[in-house]
């Protein structure tokens, strides 16, 4: 399928992990969407950036640690880009070195432009 024929869809992860199921079910959707040969990107903004924080240990919560899944989204599940909003990181005192996987850090204005290019945005 040519790049022009692909539909651009962006997951917008806005909520911190574990307090709700949004992060987990967003990942389940990302992993499924990968199989359909579209142009799928994932953006972390607001409290969503906490999902990428390194060194999470969920054993006492009895929940799965999904920060371990992000590093393979691009290679194994055909996700095109993982973006993190620069301002959201800064507002929470985080830097790129705090993150569990390689990402593209973009500022709010650039993110706005990227969102405009999308056919659909899926907020979680």
């Amino acid at each position: 399928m040519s790049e022009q024929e692909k539909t651009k869809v962006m997951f917008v992860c806005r909520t911190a992990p574990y307090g709700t199921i949004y992060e987990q079910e967003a990942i389940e959707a990302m992993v499924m969407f990968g199989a359909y040969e579209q142009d799928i990107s994932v953006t972390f903004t607001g409290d969503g950036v906490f999902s990428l924080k390194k060194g999470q240990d969920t054993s006492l919560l009895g929940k799965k640690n999904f920060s371990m899944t992000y590093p393979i989204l691009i290679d194994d599940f055909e996700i095109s880009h993982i973006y993190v909003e620069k301002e959201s990181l800064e507002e929470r005192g985080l830097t790129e070195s705090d993150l569990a996987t390689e990402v593209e850090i973009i500022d709010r204005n650039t993110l706005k432009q990227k969102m405009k290019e999308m056919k659909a945005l899926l907020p979680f």
Partner: protein
Amino acid sequence: MKFGILIKEGPYMHQAMDTAYNFILAAMESGHEITGVFFYNDGVYNRCATLEPPRDERNIMKLLTELELKGVRLIVCVAAGKRRGIVNQTVCKVEEISGLGQLLELCITSDRTITF
């Protein structure tokens, strides 16, 4: 315009389903097309067949079934449903249960995908 609808919240606790319902009606009245309504996260509870609110309250399940009779396609995510007990025996209509691929399909075939 073609609108795809994603519902992430369950009935009554959140306004999401009510707002979506009003949006869908208004869109259809204005001549727009609804490509489908996909229920994800707690949204799947909106299609629980045993909902029985007091008679003097709006019955969200019935409102949705009316939409379906008007030709709106309702799709309940199988994985989110299983996790919450919305399965063949408890869903309003077994045919509505389908996979996440249907959500992507809505994104592809709709001019706008709106999340509630």
